[in-house]
């Protein structure tokens, strides 16, 4: 009952304040356009209350995302490894940092990140929250290898950034906190939900026989049984955003989620990526070991490796997998490619 009065008082106070501080610019709330299927099927995306989306914040985040000033030697931007034309990957197995060193993980695609409700990001889930995630690559010695204080100083001394930060956040002092907030705002606008399969679900197009059969293989527990981890017609994210050991290895060089939780039962587990936009995101798996979709499908069909933490959802492991027929494999690939969203990779709002 007290809430309406609280709002009234807040409004009253704000009115008083604005008359005294009229010079402070109020950023314009950003209207996040949520695809119809997402709005219909999913709960609302996560937008932190301390980093609401604004036109100015998103625009600033985009500028920063493409700005090489964020690297130690001004040669790399976030977009160097997360190219919008490649669904924000670089199509390399591993990415070279500013000093030519390579990491051990494949650059993840970036889209629909605001629907990652556990907020664990990266293949091993080590980063909690998008703002936190954006901190790491900038300072990582084998990635952008920059010092956050120096990056902030560079931006502060630039001609255009101080005004942009002032308009986006009302702050005259630029720091890592505000930089990552802006980048996270931009990243939350990267929504992919306009593939052929989306149109099919909306009744705007039909599938080929191959795509339809491939979808059935995907959804059939006795065949692909992909839906338990990779979404369905009722979960347009096409991922559960959870961590699984999908039978890649018998022993683990890379502990994945286990290195984050410290629990041996999580060793060898990695985040299920979305199967949207696979046409643009090769190579596949956390270490980019599979160059083609055929190799990925063959892995689940015949290549599973037993280990103590393999997910119980991996079936017929002692036979190597579910033994799909050549036709089912071909059709499954056709279905997967029906989740290709060219509107997303060509969206002018996401280009430099």
């Amino acid at each position, binding site marked *: 009952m007290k809430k309406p009065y609280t709002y009234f008082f807040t409004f*009253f106070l704000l009115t008083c304040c604005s008359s005294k501080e009229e010079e402070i610019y109020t950023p314009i709330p950003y209207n996040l356009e949520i695809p119809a299927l997402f709005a219909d*099927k999913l709960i609302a995306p996560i937008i932190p209350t301390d980093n609401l989306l604004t036109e100015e914040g998103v625009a600033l985040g985009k500028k920063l995302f493409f700005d090489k000033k964020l690297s130690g030697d001004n040669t790399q931007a976030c977009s160097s490894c997360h190219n919008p034309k490649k669904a924000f990957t670089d199509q390399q197995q591993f990415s070279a940092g500013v000093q030519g060193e390579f990491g051990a993980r494949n650059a993840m695609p970036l889209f629909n990140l605001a629907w990652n*409700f556990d907020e664990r990001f990266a293949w091993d889930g080590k980063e909690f929250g998008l703002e936190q995630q954006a901190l790491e690559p900038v300072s990582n010695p084998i990635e952008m290898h920059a010092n956050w204080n120096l990056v902030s100083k560079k931006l502060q001394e630039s001609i255009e950034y101080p005004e942009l930060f002032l308009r986006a956040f009302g702050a005259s002092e630029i720091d890592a906190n505000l930089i990552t907030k802006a980048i996270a705002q931009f990243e939350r606008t990267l929504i992919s939900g306009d593939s052929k399969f989306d149109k099919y679900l909306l009744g705007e197009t039909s599938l080929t026989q191959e795509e339809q059969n491939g979808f059935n293989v995907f959804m059939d*527990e006795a065949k692909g049984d992909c839906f338990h981890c990779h979404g369905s017609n*009722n*979960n347009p994210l096409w991922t*559960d955003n959870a961590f699984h050991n999908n039978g890649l290895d018998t022993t683990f060089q890379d502990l994945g989620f286990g290195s984050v939780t410290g629990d041996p039962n999580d060793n060898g587990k990695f985040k299920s990526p979305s199967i949207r936009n696979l046409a643009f995101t090769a190579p596949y798996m956390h270490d980019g070991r599979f160059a083609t979709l055929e190799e990925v499908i063959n892995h689940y069909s015949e290549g599973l490796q037993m280990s103590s933490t393999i*997910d*119980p*959802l991996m079936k017929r492991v002692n036979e190597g997998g579910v033994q799909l027929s050549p036709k089912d494999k071909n059709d499954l690939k056709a279905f997967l490619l029906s989740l290709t969203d060219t509107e997303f990779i060509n969206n002018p709002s996401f280009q430099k």
Partner: protein
Amino acid sequence: MRKKYCLLILTLILVTGCGEELDCCGQPEQFTVTLNFTHHWNGLKITPQDFNELKFTNENGERLSIEKLRYLVSNISLINSKNYHLIDIRENTGTSITIPELTEESYALSFRFGFSDEDNTDGTYQDLNTVSFNVPGMLGGGYHFMQFDGKYIDSNNEASGFNYHMIKAVDRTDPNNLKFEDTSFEVNLGTIVITSNTEIEIKMNLAEWFKNPHTWNLNELNTILMPNFEAQKMMRANGDSVFSLGEVN
């Protein structure tokens, strides 16, 4: 502006005053009931810390572990509207359900395991879609009632996976004429007298899923159980003895 401010304060005082008056005018006292879902294996308490270890033995003598366990209950009788709740043991979510504003009286405590046919509508529940609890359309759509995954030691003495997934049973003998059988079931836990804030324990004995009346052979029934009409009916039958009333405080 000052007049409005005074009016607001006056209204606030009146509203507060009225509230106190209502309390002293014989409105029935209200209590909160908390339902706590707990899990055990023939009396041995199970928490997420017990997951991933081959420490349980089923009625058929197979050693097994639990890696994932989440299930759906709906239409809890103490809640005066349609309701459903996803309980996830590994993530420790949904195990405690708080029901406010109950008055002093006797209540029949019951709930449905899973969704009735009426409530099991495909794609309707956004929170369940978001956590991928759906059932494929080829099996009739709707939602899982339970996902119980783990590993067992098979007859070759090797660890193998099992997916004890319960859904509305579907007979696909004739693909053009699917036949369904509702495998959700009502759990009646008797009458509860509420005279104060109360915590009620509802116990699930996981061993019973493998035991009574059907002794479950994991070497025969381990995965791909969703499209298995007979397996689903066996799960339904074994479900009858799974729940019991625990402590009421």
